[in-house]
């Protein structure tokens, strides 16, 4: 089982490498280390969000409100920054991450305490959070010149030749790896998603693990709110509109089972990188950006078909398979 998963990740990694090489054949400049770093940097936000989404999906839930959460926290930070330019940026980031955590916790509470399915809750909060941005901003934009210099500069500033944005995503990958592999809570998340009944009888509060997964997803979305708004130096109502689908897609491509309990941090990162490479490569090899949506759509479909093959070998419904063979 573990071997199989490792294989799958190696396969995905190989696929990405081949893809990069193929693009390199058309435009050799794509292979320059500086460009590859730039591709990674460009994918950083997607990676961070996908990591949060992974935890939620592992517990058999889904968080469709991440993009709206990101946009709302980003707008709040941008407005605070333009109103009080004196506020230190770390404090702002803390406020944003805290707000994101609260928004995530709201989702999680509804799922945990009221037992409303996650897809319903987050469909609802997705439009609520998006609407609140409009109420706060009155539909106005916060533009680059209204933001303080340090607010915009931090994610771009380089540390050891790599932008801070990339460092943040690397740190998150490390943290989530440690959390999912070596912390009790992380293991409980897998247990709760794999078999909720068994998890319950081993003393795990399944609802609570779901709540925690939502909190972490919200926290990361809040963090990304800052990264996104400062990177693009603009905040408006429709920031990252529809980005939640890319995030879910990254998880699916990375082999996170939507049925819960299966998936790893590295798979998730590779899934995000896969999309990131495609998004960055299309303009380079001269494909019209109009193709992007269809390509990521077909990639999702192909990925889930491949995943379904891999997962079926695990044999979840033995009886049904036997019956099918008997027929």
């Amino acid at each position, binding site marked *: 089982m573990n071997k199989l998963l490792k294989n799958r990740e190696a396969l995905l990694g190989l696929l990405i490498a081949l893809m990069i090489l193929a693009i390199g054949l058309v435009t050799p400049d794509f292979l320059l280390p500086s460009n590859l770093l730039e591709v990674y940097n460009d994918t950083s936000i997607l990676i961070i969000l996908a990591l949060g989404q992974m935890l939620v999906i592992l517990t*058999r839930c*889904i968080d469709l409100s991440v993009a709206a959460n990101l946009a709302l926290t980003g707008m709040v930070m941008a407005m605070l920054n333009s109103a009080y330019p004196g506020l230190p940026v770390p404090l702002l980031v803390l406020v944003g991450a805290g707000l994101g955590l609260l928004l995530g916790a709201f989702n999680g509470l*509804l799922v945990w305490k*009221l*037992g*409303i*399915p996650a*897809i*319903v*809750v987050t*469909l*609802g*909060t*997705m*439009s*609520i959070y*998006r*609407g*609140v941005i*409009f*109420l706060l901003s009155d*539909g106005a934009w916060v533009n680059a010149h209204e933001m303080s210099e340090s607010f915009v500069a931090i994610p771009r500033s380089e540390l050891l030749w790599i932008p801070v944005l990339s460092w943040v995503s690397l740190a998150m990958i490390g943290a989530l790896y440690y959390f999912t592999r070596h912390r009790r809570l992380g293991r409980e998340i897998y247990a*709760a998603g794999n078999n*909720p*009944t068994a*998890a*319950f009888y081993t003393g795990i509060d*399944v*609802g609570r693990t779901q709540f925690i997964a939502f909190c972490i997803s919200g926290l990361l979305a809040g963090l990304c709110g800052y990264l996104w708004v400062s990177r693009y130096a603009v905040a408006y*109502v429709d920031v990252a509109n529809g980005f939640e*689908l890319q995030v*879910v*897609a990254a998880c*699916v491509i990375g082999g996170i089972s*939507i*049925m819960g309990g299966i998936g790893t941090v590295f798979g998730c990162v590779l899934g995000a990188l896969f999309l990131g490479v495609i998004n960055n490569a299309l303009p380079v090899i001269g494909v*019209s950006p*109009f*193709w*992007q*949506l*269809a*390509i*990521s*759509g*077909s990639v*999702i*479909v192909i990925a*889930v*078909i491949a*995943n*379904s*093959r891999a997962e*079926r070998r695990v044999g979840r*419904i033995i*009886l*049904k398979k036997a*019956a099918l063979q008997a027929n």
Partner: protein
Amino acid sequence: MDKIMQEPFDKQFESPLESAQAKPQVKPQVKPQLPRIGLSGRLRSWEFFLLLITAAVFLLNSLASPYFLDPWNLSDASFNFTEKAVIALPLAMLIICREIDLSVASIIALASVAMGFAAQSGFGTTLIVLIGIGVGGLCGLANGLLVTRFEIPSIVVTIGTMSLYRGITYILLGDDVLKAYPDGFDYFGQGYVYAMFSFEFVLFLVLAALFFVLLHRTNFGRRTYAIGNNPTAAFYSGIDVARHRLILFVLVGLLAGVASVMLTSRLGSTRPTIALGWELSIVTMVVLGGVNILGGSGTIAGVFIAVFLMGLVTFGLGLLNVPGIVMSIIIGAMLIGVIAMPILLKRFKQRRG
């Protein structure tokens, strides 16, 4: 047997979510549920609860704006939700069957593009309409085949095809507009059958009646509930679960095609962004109508009332000049609130005695 399968009123006196909890909520039930029957059961039904809210919204609206009660205004307002409502009907059945289709809005767009090209190459109205519905059906078939042949959860498949179908419209159209529709084509979205009863509205009523019969009065409908309640048991009792789901996916696709005909005819043009984000409000309609998102329960009557409730809320707010994005807050809150309220009420009652 008949009584068990005939879902509608008596079983649904609590929130639809409480009845078929397939969620990993493993808390043992301490209190046995007392069966409630007869009139009091009916008054506690989800549909009755919805009807009350709808009536309240209607009353509030007519108090808030003097223009609300005008029959022509109300008729105009129906255009805003009939196209979505037409898809909500088969989608309700699909969700009862434990599947979901998030690609419906993209199917509308793809079907609309197909019709636009057909119109451009000089096809007649009948053929254009058939092409629109046909493309919708094909999209539904593709969804259904992916879900049933590969046993992939439909939510992932349709998130994928949602981007795929929409993406194809972008590839085909770019930022162009198609608007060479023939003269008779505008009837489906702009025509009136009788006085202020629009073609769209009448078609919706007819379809609602058809789907009521299909879900509540035929074997097909009963199988839908059976699969939704327990797919494995349904499989062993001889129901071809995969084929049943496939048919439902095709039905959703076909009706998305119908909706596309109406919307394209009403707008008179096709852009790649047509019906963008509609899947959200359509799913909201279905869930608001008391269909359990986890499958197994729900009624056409509930969806029917929910359609009007959503229509009235958006129309009333529109009359009050509330911008669309603020409306989305209210609809989102409604979706969560309407589901949370019965659960909270029940908790409150249990705590008191």
